[in-house]
């Protein structure tokens, strides 16, 4: 076993084996609107602003938030498809930041990603067999015959038949394409799979099929997932622990039960309240917290980044002056809020049973 150094950066006070993935103080800035030719500096956008979390082996860790919250940028930094501005990504004890290109390529075999759009992520000119085989070719794994066998095995794993493997992506439905994308990710036998909105483009009935398949594969292959998702119902169904992101920073981080039953951060509360429940009886009774403004509203300097939209902190001085730190309010339940838990009674009055 590799490095066992303990870190508080991930905020996980538990006595656990070393996590498979540790993200520590991750920052990623983008420059927007600048132009070298015109000598304009442009604005710095902090797409990811000091994000830390750790993911245990076999766990599903959810990154939840609305568009622009930085969740996909975090994913791309983990794979070093984007170079972080600051912070460390530690995968299985190895800090991947200083790795050379070929070392990184070798490590990437063990960390794969599945994208949201099953239409854009598969080469339309290749047949399914070639698509799924390609990673083996790139990483120079196995011989021709061996590769073909592995392709068929992997496709079988995700429910695509050998006959179907000769077809091209356009002959498949969205759900089946997502299975193919999954096969391509799994053929390298990775430890970590980053799922970037893998079911968002799919219909409800197909979504359930793919979610069930992802679960089954996780158990069979002992996979670790980082699950990026904006749909909170799917997040709740699928994730063991989650971080809620807002404008590049973690607002709340805890296990599923606590996040959905007793959220501490008002943004989490408002998000949960905004999701319409597919039950008219419940809908009639519910209080909806409708947030003012939008995520894209400019980040005002100083104070809490959520303050402009916050139903409880908007007019409070401290929220305007001091950025709340992400700290543990109970063991394993982190929130970045000066008034944690205050919104809760408003959101789900019936669900607040004491345990």
């Amino acid at each position, binding site marked *: 076993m590799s490095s066992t150094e303990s870190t508080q950066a991930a905020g996980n006070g538990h006595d656990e084996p070393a996590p498979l993935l540790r993200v520590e103080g991750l920052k990623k800035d983008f420059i927007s609107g600048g132009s070298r030719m015109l000598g304009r500096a442009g604005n710095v956008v902090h797409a990811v602003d000091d994000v830390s979390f750790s993911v245990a082996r076999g766990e599903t860790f959810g990154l939840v938030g*609305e*568009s622009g919250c930085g969740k996909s940028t975090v994913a791309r930094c983990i794979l070093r498809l984007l170079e972080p501005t600051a912070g460390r990504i530690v995968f299985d004890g190895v800090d991947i930041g200083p790795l050379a290109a070929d070392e990184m390529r070798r490590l990437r075999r063990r960390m794969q990603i599945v994208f949201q759009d099953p239409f854009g992520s598969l080469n339309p000119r290749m047949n399914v067999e070639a698509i799924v085989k390609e990673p083996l070719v790139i990483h120079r794994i196995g011989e021709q015959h061996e590769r073909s066998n592995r392709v068929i095995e992997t496709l079988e794993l995700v429910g695509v038949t050998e006959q179907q493997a000769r077809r091209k992506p356009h002959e498949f*439905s*969205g*759900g*089946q394409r997502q299975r193919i994308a999954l096969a391509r990710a799994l053929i390298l036998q990775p430890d970590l799979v980053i799922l970037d909105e893998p079911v968002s483009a799919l*219909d*409800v*009935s*197909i*979504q*359930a*099929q793919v*979610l*069930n398949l992802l*679960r*089954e594969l996780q158990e069979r292959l002992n996979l670790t997932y980082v699950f990026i998702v*904006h749909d*909170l*119902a*799917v997040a*709740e*169904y*699928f994730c063991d622990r989650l971080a809620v992101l807002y404008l590049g920073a973690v607002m709340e981080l805890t296990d*599923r*039960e606590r996040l*959905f039953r007793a959220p501490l951060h008002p943004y989490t509360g*408002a*998000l*949960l*309240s*905004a*999701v*319409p*429940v*597919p*039950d*008219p*009886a*419940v*809908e009639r009774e519910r209080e*909806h917290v*409708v*947030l003012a403004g*939008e*995520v*894209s509203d400019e980040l005002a300097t100083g104070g809490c980044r959520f303050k402009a*939209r916050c139903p409880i902190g908007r007019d409070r001085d401290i929220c305007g002056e001091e950025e709340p730190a992400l700290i543990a309010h109970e063991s394993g339940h982190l929130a970045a809020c000066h008034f944690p838990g205050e919104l809760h009674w408003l959101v*789900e009055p019936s*669900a607040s049973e004491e345990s």
Partner: protein
Amino acid sequence: MSTSVAEHGQGAGLSPEHGGHVLRVAGLQSEFRSRRGTVKAVRAVSLELEPGQRVGIVGESGSGKSAFALSVLGLLEPPGYVVGGEVILNGRNIAELDDRQMQTVRGKEISIVFQDPMSALNPVKTIGQQITETIRKHQPQLGKKGARAAAIELLRDVEVPAAGRRIDDYPHQYSGGMRQRVMIAIALANQPNVLIADEPTTALDVTTQAQVLTLLDRLVTERGTAVILITHNLGIVAQFCDVVYVMYAGRVVERAATADLFAHPVHPYTEALLRAVPRPDQLAQGPLPSIPGAPPNLAEVAPGCSFESRCPLGRGHKLCRTEVPVSTAAIGFGSGGATAECHFAKERVAEYLDGDATTA
């Protein structure tokens, strides 16, 4: 209490009176033609809408719900064609009108909000120009100044901040949520009786979605606008609609008052759909009940029920394989008037009634 189940065609309203419909669609059929065959996208769909009522159409992609909306509005473009049925709006059949006549109806008596506001708005015209165009088309007496004032008023009404200034912005200067507010403003500019909203919040984030739905709710309530809300999101239906139509493979397979549909889904597809959604208010246990297979190819409609191959009740049943189920009225529970196109509808209703009787 009557517990009998009667069979009859689609057309029984959920309300007793039949004359009071602002929109009545009867047997609407549309198809898309290509060299590879004809896709029967809308297969004899009927729908009734009372003034101020909110009807939801739920279905997955390819169920025909958007083709239905476009057909009602006369906006279906080749290779799509409306090939049958009536669309009675305010007492006259608009399916018979030509393009020019339809232009006087669309935007005035009936209008639509699409999913993607960016492609529905003209990028080289200001927001103000696009709203005033719509206003002046149907209310020329207002004049330029009057139309601009009305446009600012509308933008205020859809809660665009600093409306007086932002009216001169271009669409790209608006966020997604703000653009959808503009689309709603344009759709409601001439006080139509009927608004069709086709996945109006699907492209939006959940907190923005909540804002837009709250806004839409207020606006249509104030104006008494009847709404057809097309969505794949069962949560939105539960929150917004009085009546729900469930579409599958180009047909309305079930129709019921919202509360009844969620409490007593009669069609097995409806039930499967409801169960396949992870619910944010319930911690899930075990695998999600998924629906096996995929919807049928509507270029080659097989005999029998279109859901047969995926149906937990009917798969392999001779009757389900060979005979198209007729619409069956589910009488005896809920607020009445529900219908389902299923050979097992009678049994299903009887089971619910037994269940209700034992729990009562």
